[in-house]
């Protein structure tokens, strides 16, 4: 259990770590991916900037060209009117100055003179052989009409390193004015602009910011820098100048971009390694977006390129910051999850532990209660069993098994064993039918189980039960055990041995019977006594009067004999009924027995009966009338003698049962014993086994009445010759409470 928990926790820990690592890897990839996406987006933004800048430059160039074209249409310029050409040029120049135009001039059709106005409003007419020069030759070609040419130029006055462009537009005489009413449509030289390209471009590009530190630069169609934040680059070849500045770094990438993309007028995005960025040095990854600047109308057409660059770290920083936060957040979340999981696991573990201990406790409790129940069931001195619908044993306690097997009956002592240790015989019963052990003649029939199954109501029956030679009374309670749905599952039976109870009940019934009989007998005796007294009185009188040899005297004798028998019966009846009357006498049992022995000893000798006396000395006295006690002992001894017609042994034992505080007198014979069918009737009045006229059937009735009157008990144990050929005979035990004087009782109380 504990090892499993340990394993479980370990695996959870490992899983957590694995998840964290996986999260990290996924995070890393996602960072990369994010970087790519953001870089892409960033570059797209840069591209926007670049294309926009390119577009602006194109428009500016177009505007400039339009202005120059308009100027070129001006008659004063076409015809080089002395009065107005310079002013006209000045007008245009004033607008174009802002874009970096340094000079606007006009070379005449002969190529001999150049009429120029500078941005400083200098008007110059410069003579020169222009006709042989490239611009003139280019402009002269008719196919270049309405075309523009750009050629690099140099200014004479100290603008070294500044790329200057000469923009050339051929001039044809197509306008009319007062002096020239008809357009000649003739070639008349060209107009040129000197453009400070750096200025032209810088005005647009220097304001561009990409990210925090990103900037724009531009190259012309020859790969020279038109503009760069690093001023010394301007005018230099972009393919060379970087390597000169940072030799260690390979600029292949940017060179390739410049060559293959930018110079070919393609727009796009990419990245390259640079050696610096503003103040920083070293290997710096840069993101680049580039766009062409198509100078429309140029022939051959000229395309510049604008690039917007920013270090990748810009993106990285943004993303890294976000990702750092995200990662911290992730960490927090994972930490929270782990913490939560741990606490849940801990709680679960704790809970499981508690549950386990609870379960253990409950199991223990259950075991204990089960043991307790088992103890109860096994320790019960009842037959406890359960049965199925077919009336077969499902279970049975040990006591029951021993009882049903007759193991609890000791054939030696003829008694039920009072043992607490039972051999387990239950296995011999399980699955067998109840009817096999509970014979149906004891009113316990198999249909009972079926009935309980059907009705679900408990039932209690009292039935007899025979084990070996002994008859028992059992009180069996049958209870339907139901499940939660109220369906009967089994029938529980509890059988209690109520043999003793039955005996006592019978005694009670007997006692009551005898009490009422006593009253009746007393009444009857009195009623008979009077007439009997009269009869016997007269008979007595007559016997005196009539001589003995007379026949009548014989008759009177018969009357007197029968009357005397009557008198004996009545006397017995009266003495039996006398227990309703009080007598507070105290008796010494041994002394009374002695009196009785002296009376019967002679008779015993004649009947060949040996008397064995075992009288305990110093026996406490009992509260009973000695005359009546003697009557009791005499009755019992007379019966014992009658039971031994062939002689035998009469044993009389007295003893003091200290624990019960009773005196016991046991009178035992070795006679014929009392037959089973007679045993219950022996105390009934007028029940006798003697011949008519020999016994009144009141001896034991009177005995019982007397003993009962003094709160005593009389017990019988008997075995007939059929039941036990060796140890047959009858034993009566008279038990009387010990008498305590008031003083003794007080002492006891104190």
């Amino acid at each position, binding site marked *: 259990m504990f090892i499993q928990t340990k394993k479980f926790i370990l695996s959870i820990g490992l899983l957590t770590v694995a998840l964290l690592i996986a999260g990290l890897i996924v995070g890393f990839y996602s960072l990369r991916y994010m970087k790519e996406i953001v870089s892409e987006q960033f570059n797209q933004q840069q591209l926007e900037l670049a294309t926009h800048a390119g577009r602006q430059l194109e428009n500016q160039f177009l505007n400039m060209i339009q202005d120059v074209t308009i100027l070129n249409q001006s008659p004063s310029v076409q015809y080089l009117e002395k009065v107005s050409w310079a002013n006209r040029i000045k007008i245009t120049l004033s607008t174009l100055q802002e874009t970096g135009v340094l000079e606007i001039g006009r070379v005449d059709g002969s190529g001999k003179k150049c009429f120029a106005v500078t941005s400083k409003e200098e008007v110059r007419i410069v003579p020169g052989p222009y006709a042989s020069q490239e611009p003139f030759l280019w402009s002269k070609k008719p196919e270049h009409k309405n075309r523009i040419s750009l050629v690099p130029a140099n200014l004479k006055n100290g603008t070294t390193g500044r790329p200057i462009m000469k923009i050339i537009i051929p001039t044809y005489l197509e306008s009319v004015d007062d002096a020239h009413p008809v357009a000649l449509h003739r070639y008349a030289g060209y107009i040129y602009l000197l453009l400070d390209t750096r200025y032209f471009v810088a005005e647009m590009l220097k304001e561009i910011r990409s990210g925090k530190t990103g900037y724009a630069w531009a190259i012309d169609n020859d790969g020279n820098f038109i503009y760069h934040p690093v001023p010394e680059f301007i005018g230099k070849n972009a393919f060379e100048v970087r390597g000169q500045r940072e030799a260690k770094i390979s600029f292949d990438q940017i060179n390739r971009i410049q060559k293959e993309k930018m110079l070919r007028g393609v727009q796009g995005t990419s990245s390259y390694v640079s050696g610096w960025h503003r103040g920083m040095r070293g290997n710096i990854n840069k993101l680049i977006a580039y766009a062409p600047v198509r100078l429309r109308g140029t022939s051959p057409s000229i395309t510049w390129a604008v690039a917007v660059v920013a270090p990748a770290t810009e993106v990285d920083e943004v993303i890294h910051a976000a990702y750092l936060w995200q990662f911290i957040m992730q960490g927090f979340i994972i930490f929270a999850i782990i913490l939560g999981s741990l606490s849940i696991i801990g709680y679960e573990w704790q809970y499981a532990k508690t549950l386990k201990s609870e379960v253990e406790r409950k199991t223990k409790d259950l075991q204990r209660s089960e043991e307790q129940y088992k103890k109860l069931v096994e320790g019960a001195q009842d037959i406890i069993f359960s049965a199925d619908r077919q009336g077969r044993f499902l279970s049975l306690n040990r006591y029951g098994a021993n009882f049903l097997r007759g193991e609890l009956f000791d054939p030696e002592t003829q008694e039920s064993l009072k043992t607490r240790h039972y051999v387990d015989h239950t296995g011999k019963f399980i699955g067998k039918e109840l009817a096999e052990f509970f014979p149906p003649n004891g009113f316990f029939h198999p249909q009972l189980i079926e009935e309980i199954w059907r009705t679900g109501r408990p039932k209690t029956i009292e039935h007899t039960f025979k084990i070996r030679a002994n008859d028992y009374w059992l009180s069996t309670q049958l209870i339907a055990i139901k499940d939660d749905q109220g369906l009967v599952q089994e029938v529980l039976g509890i059988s209690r041995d109520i043999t003793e109870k039955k005996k006592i009940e019978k005694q009670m019934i007997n006692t009551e019977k005898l009490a009422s009989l006593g009253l009746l007998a*007393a009444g009857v*005796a*009195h009623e008979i*006594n*009077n*007439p*009997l*007294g*009269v*009869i*016997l*009185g*007269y008979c*007595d*009188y007559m016997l*005196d009067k009539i001589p003995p040899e007379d026949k009548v005297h014989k008759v009177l004798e018969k009357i007197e004999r029968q*009357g005397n028998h009557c*008198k004996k019966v*009545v*006397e017995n009846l*009266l*003495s039996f*009924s*006398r227990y309703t*009357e*009080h*007598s507070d006498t105290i008796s010494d049992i041994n002394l009374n027995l002695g009196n009785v022995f002296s009376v019967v000893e002679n008779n015993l000798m004649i009947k060949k009966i040996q008397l064995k006396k075992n009288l305990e000395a110093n026996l406490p006295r009992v509260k009973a009338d000695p005359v009546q006690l003697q009557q009791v002992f005499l009755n019992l001894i007379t019966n014992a003698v009658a039971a031994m017609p062939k002689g035998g042994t009469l044993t009389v034992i007295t003893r003091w049962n200290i624990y019960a505080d009773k005196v016991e007198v046991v009178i035992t014979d070795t006679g014929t014993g009392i037959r089973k069918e007679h045993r219950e009737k022996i105390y009934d009045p007028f029940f006798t086994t003697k011949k008519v006229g020999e016994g009144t059937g009141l001896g034991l009735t009177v005995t019982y009445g007397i003993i009962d009157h003094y709160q005593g008990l009389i017990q019988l144990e008997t075995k007939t010759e059929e039941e036990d050929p060796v140890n047959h005979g009858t034993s009566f035990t008279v038990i009387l409470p010990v008498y305590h004087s008031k003083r003794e009782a007080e002492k006891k109380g104190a």
Partner: protein
Amino acid sequence: MAEKILIVDDEMDMLELLELIITDRTDYQVVTTNSPLEVPELLKKDTFDLLITDLRMPDIDGIELIEMVKQIDDQIPFIIITAYGTIESAVEAMRKGAFDYITKPFRQEQILLTIEKVMKWRRLQKENMALKAELEKIKKGSHG
């Protein structure tokens, strides 16, 4: 002058039997009544030397009868006839001053013996009383 015996019993046959035995075997005069309530009247009319009474009678109990008799004549001895079963009552009667008791059914010797005993005592009692009276006379005479 023969001594007189008064016998009280609700049973007529018993009365007659007792009368028969006593008159047959002794010289005493016998007066019988089966109604105990007549006894006080009889006692007032006549003087008796012995009263024999049954203990159990209707109308009036033997014990009550004794109480009644004692108020009229506290010197008269009496014998109680009782059944064996009411021995306790007989004992009580003895305490009340009965001279003796006889249990039913009795043999005539028993009753005759008992009567004789009582009569002896009765004579002694009478003699005693007479002597006492004589003594008183002498005392008075000596004074007078």
